[in-house]
């Protein structure tokens, strides 16, 4: 029994059907971790991108070093660090939050590069036109640069959403009951790994296909010229 559902081992099909609700509970955790991790990656990445672009090296250098560190160390190391080290400083987060934070941190290193490339792709011409019209730096950023950068940024960000989704099983090592972990537990207890793990694979495939299709649709809906301003 798991999450209040009973499994039925009398036959392969009934077994598969009986464990599906448990896997769906795990899948919901996976989705939540993905969304939360992605959201953190988007926010943190933007912060790093702004800091890295700062004119002062005292600001930009630590940001560059930190994102490089995030990029070059394994997710699981960062996860252990957050899970075992933060409590020593009195910061105790639930395993799920720690996991989402680790995903968000690791991927913020990648998203910051996407932001940087997207913002830099909006050329000198546009900044100069804005300057000649005396628009403020902030207004230029929010109404000239960002709307044009969005269509370049969204597709790349979408790829990272799918990557994050596929990295969620790493959180099982800190006891998060995401979908793979649930499948493994079912296998441990019923001595049948084939069916739960196959179902996990199938459900993963559905999730990533749906996410990719949604992102492609979003990408194709965004006008190439940028978010329109009437």
């Amino acid at each position, binding site marked *: 029994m798991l999450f209040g559902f009973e499994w039925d081992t009398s036959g392969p099909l009934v077994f598969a059907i009986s464990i599906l609700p448990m896997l769906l509970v795990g899948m919901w955790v996976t989705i939540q971790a993905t969304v939360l991790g992605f959201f953190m990656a988007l926010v943190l990445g933007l912060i790093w991108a702004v800091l890295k672009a700062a004119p002062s090296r005292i600001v930009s250098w630590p940001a560059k070093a930190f994102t490089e560190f995030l990029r070059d160390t394994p997710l699981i190391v960062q996860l252990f660090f957050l899970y075992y080290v933060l409590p020593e400083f009195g910061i105790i987060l639930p395993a799920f939050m720690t996991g989402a934070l680790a995903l968000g941190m690791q991927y913020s290193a990648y998203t910051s590069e996407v932001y940087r490339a997207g913002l830099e792709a909006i050329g000198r011409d546009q900044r*100069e036109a804005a300057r000649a*019209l005396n628009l403020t730096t902030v207004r230029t950023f929010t109404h000239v640069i960002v709307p044009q950068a969005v269509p370049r940024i969204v597709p790349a960000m979408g790829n990272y959403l799918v990557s994050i989704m596929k990295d969620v099983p790493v959180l099982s090592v800190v006891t998060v009951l995401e979908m793979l972990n649930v499948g493994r537990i079912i296998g441990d207890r019923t001595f049948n790994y084939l069916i739960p793990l196959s179902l996990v694979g199938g459900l993963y495939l559905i999730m990533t296909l749906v996410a990719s299709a949604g992102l492609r649709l979003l990408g194709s809906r965004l006008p190439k010229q940028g*978010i329109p*301003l*009437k």
Partner: protein
Amino acid sequence: MTDTIIKFDKVVKRFGDVTVLNELDFTVKRGEKVSIIGPSGSGKSTVLRILMTLEGIEGGVVTVDGEPLWHEGPNLKPASEAHLRKMRAQLGMVFQSFNLFPHMTVLRNITEAPVKVLGLSRAAAKARADELLDLVGLADQAAKYPHQLSGGQQQRVGIARALAMRPKILLFDEPTSALDPELVGEVLNVIGKLAEEHDLTMLLVTHEMRFAREISDRVLFFDQGRICEEGSPEDLFTAPTQDRTREFLGSILKEG
């Protein structure tokens, strides 16, 4: 009010080790229409970009309507961004590649700065934009996006956008160089119309010699960051005194 609106006094501009402008001197009178011609790399764009505050200077003083552009205060300390903002309001620029905001409608391109910088109401800015679109012959294109227009139309929007800020000085950097030949005329027509305005000071970098001759009060021939020769269009085009000028005009005539 003095008669001089632009003054370059021993202006030096370097890019790294390369000195692009070496103690350049010239003045432009209020309302004057001045064309700048010269070979590629002679510093024509740089002069306009310094005036538009897109490029700083390494020496000398640029004065716009009696006030230093890149300096402020009695000791001529380097200008603050606030000073540059104030000075910039007197100038407008039309770019070679238009530089319209591709995600904004034609109307929004023209009204964005008047609303956000000058503080006009949307309605007032729209009324001004409608007038200007009428002037440049695009009254029916306000709701379109730049990519839906031809190059000539885009450049006319560029002109309307610059005019919407009511500049005293309008800078044109090869406004027709990026256009297909058949679209050049419609843009020159608009610039020609503006040239009839008495108060507006115009600086035009161009390779359209015939047009420069028609509309200019004075022509400056730039060569290697200096003014090699200047004069009325008649004198400069028909009786140039410098060898370099003759050579340049000869090469241009051969081209087309």
